[in-house]
């Protein structure tokens, strides 16, 4: 009990400490605290501000010498790693309460206490991660103030109100989270349970608003608004917040966070499954891993569309930025991205196929798995085929140019859009087969229903191929881009229609037998680990690309980056930094998992404590 109190106090202490630091830094940014005497950078900021009329927020254009160097540390790499670590943890702690809320609500509706226990265990994992998120957020703010004072001053000048409310909302989020977690067992039953669920809803609302605020700051740096051509703030805060890329990022991050959170708690369940001793414990963590994977897949399916929407909006905002993104130096990172996304799909599917072994009826569908695997791997290969190849002069001559005769056509977007839609549909099919594994349909029209479902998929895939091949190779660019929308719509219609149809076919179905939770091979758990690692790597990589397309600008077109690092690093260098970040994050996540394990372990040292007589 004492240990629990100490942990609670430590968590509060850390959270409040970081929040206080944030408020302090934001007030500094607002100029409430006189920065004079804080060293050369602060003096520079003060001098340049003096040159402007009072109250005008305009970007300063510092020279290379104005960027502080502290202890020989490379400021770009430090800010890069700290920002990325903060984002990974933030994505995790924002996502977990979303599905904890949903699982708790399912538990309330079904009155099945297992859901409640699982939801509690999910939120327990996020508690320590929450402290780490706050610590990383505080560290990031310090790093920005210390290494990029002019940029921070400019952003704080424009976003002072949102930054101040952000700091206040941080208290609200902490309060909601701690009441939600520590009050879990207290707020049980009847009205109290409703109250608890409401706190969960508030926690999600506050967390989402916090993320939207932070998204406004970063998208302002990519697509500034609310300022004139010279970057002078017009006073239109909503305009600056609601800039061109704000909503695309908001949408993409909400969906991606859920998928990511699912993958991390899936890894937690896998860790617990592999270290479990008893069959009951194994069954519990198998169920938890399955649920986490289901959440991750459900959010993963619409994610490529949200990503496509974001990329299309980047193009729409600035063609130059869009071409840098996918046609310039970053294009090769998209090939790595494609490999990682393919890994996500393959590992998620593999986990489902292994999971069919939980049911005695699963064997009926085993023969289909190889066909699913062939199609998904085929789509995966198309998905990551590059348009051009990295070649030596001799190879270039032998090939007769940078484009391969057969593989070159697979490198363009229509081929990739077609491949990803098919990959998504076959993942849906895997899930449908998994759901059917333990059921025997009893409705009289089951055979006709199955045929209809196959026809739905066949017609949809034919349509996706028609749009991808005809519009992709026999029309112009406008048609190529435009036809991607009906492709997406076709996929979504098939997913919804087949799910509804399947529900009707299996209404009142008989069960083959009880599901044997825990009867799953260990290698399925490694698929869950792979899912978490691939997600983390992917987020790091894409985060770098999103930020990197600003190139030599702090704020695109308005505030130049004049630091020594204002160049795009080599792909190998960038990939190494992202990989180091991934290893650091995974190490911290293992620490979080270990803490949750330790918190449930008690040692009884014989003879250590004095015996107390009654």
């Amino acid at each position, binding site marked *: 009990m004492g240990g629990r109190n100490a942990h609670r106090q430590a968590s509060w202490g850390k959270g409040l400490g970081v929040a206080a630091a944030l408020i302090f830094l934001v007030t500094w940014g607002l100029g409430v605290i006189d920065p004079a005497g804080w060293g050369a950078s602060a003096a520079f900021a003060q001098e340049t501000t003096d040159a402007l009329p009072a109250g005008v927020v305009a970007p300063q254009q510092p020279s290379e010498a104005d960027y502080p160097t502290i202890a020989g540390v490379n400021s770009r790499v430090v800010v890069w790693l700290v920002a990325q670590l903060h984002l990974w943890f933030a994505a995790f702690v924002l996502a977990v309460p979303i599905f904890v809320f949903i699982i708790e609500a399912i538990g309330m509706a079904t009155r099945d206490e297992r859901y409640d226990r699982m939801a509690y265990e999910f939120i327990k994992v996020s508690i320590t991660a929450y402290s780490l998120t706050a610590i990383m957020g505080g560290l990031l703010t310090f790093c920005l103030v210390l290494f990029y004072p002019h940029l921070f001053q400019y952003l704080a000048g424009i976003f002072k109100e949102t930054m101040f409310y952000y700091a206040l909302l941080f208290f609200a989020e902490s309060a909601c989270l701690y009441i939600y977690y520590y009050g879990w067992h207290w707020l049980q039953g009847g009205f109290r349970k409703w109250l608890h669920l409401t706190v969960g809803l508030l926690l999600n609302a506050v967390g989402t608003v916090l993320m939207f605020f932070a998204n406004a700051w970063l998208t302002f740096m990519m697509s500034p608004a609310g300022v004139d051509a010279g970057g002078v703030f017009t006073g239109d805060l909503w305009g600056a917040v609601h800039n061109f890329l704000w909503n695309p990022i908001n949408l993409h991050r909400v969906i991606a966070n859920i998928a990511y959170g699912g993958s991390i708690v899936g890894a937690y369940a896998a860790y617990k499954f592999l270290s479990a001793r008893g069959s009951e414990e194994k069954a519990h963590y198998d169920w938890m891993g399955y649920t986490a994977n289901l959440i991750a897949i459900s959010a993963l399916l619409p994610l490529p569309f949200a990503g496509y929407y974001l990329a299309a909006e980047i193009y729409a905002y600035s063609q130059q930025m869009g071409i840098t993104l996918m046609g310039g130096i970053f294009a090769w990172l998209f090939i790595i991205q494609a490999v990682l996304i393919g890994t996500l799909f393959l590992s998620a599917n593999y986990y489902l196929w292994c999971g069919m072994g939980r049911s005695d009826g699963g064997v009926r569908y085993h023969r289909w798995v190889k066909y699913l695997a062939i199609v998904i791997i085929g789509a995966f290969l198309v998905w990551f085929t590059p348009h051009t190849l990295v070649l030596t002069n001799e190879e270039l001559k032998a090939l007769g140019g940078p484009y391969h005769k057969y593989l070159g056509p697979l490198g363009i977007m229509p081929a990739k859009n077609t491949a990803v839609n098919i990959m998504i549909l076959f993942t849906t099919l895997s899930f449908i087969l998994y759901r059917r594994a333990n059921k025997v349909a009893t409705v009289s029209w089951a055979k*006709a229903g199955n*045929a209809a479902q196959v026809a739905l998929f066949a017609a949809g895939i034919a349509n996706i191929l028609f749009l991808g091949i005809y519009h992709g190779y026999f029309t112009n660019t406008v048609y190529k881009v435009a036809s991607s929308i009906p492709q997406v719509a076709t996929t979504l219609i098939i997913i919804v229609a087949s799910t509804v149809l399947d529900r009707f076919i299996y209404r009142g179905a008989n069960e083959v037998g009880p599901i044997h939770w825990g009867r799953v091979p260990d290698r399925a758990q490694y698929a869950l680990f792979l899912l978490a690692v691939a997600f983390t790597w992917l987020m790091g990589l894409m985060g770098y690309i999103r930020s990197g397309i600003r190139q030599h600008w702090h704020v695109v077109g308005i505030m130049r980056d004049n630091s020594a690092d204002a160049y795009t690093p080599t792909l190998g260098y960038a990939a190494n930094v992202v990989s180091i970040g991934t290893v650091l994050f995974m190490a911290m996540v293992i620490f979080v998992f270990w803490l949750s394990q330790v918190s449930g372990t008690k040692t009884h040292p014989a003879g250590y404590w004095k015996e107390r007589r009654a």
Partner: protein
Amino acid sequence: MKNYAVPFVLVFLACGAGFLALDYAVMSLQGLSLFFSG
């Protein structure tokens, strides 16, 4: 076989027509025709 073939053909044709109508509608909304007209 008849249990499968008839519903398959009917649903395939219906869904195929439906998807083509969807393509036509979405392309029209973007100011384009379903088939490339140069």
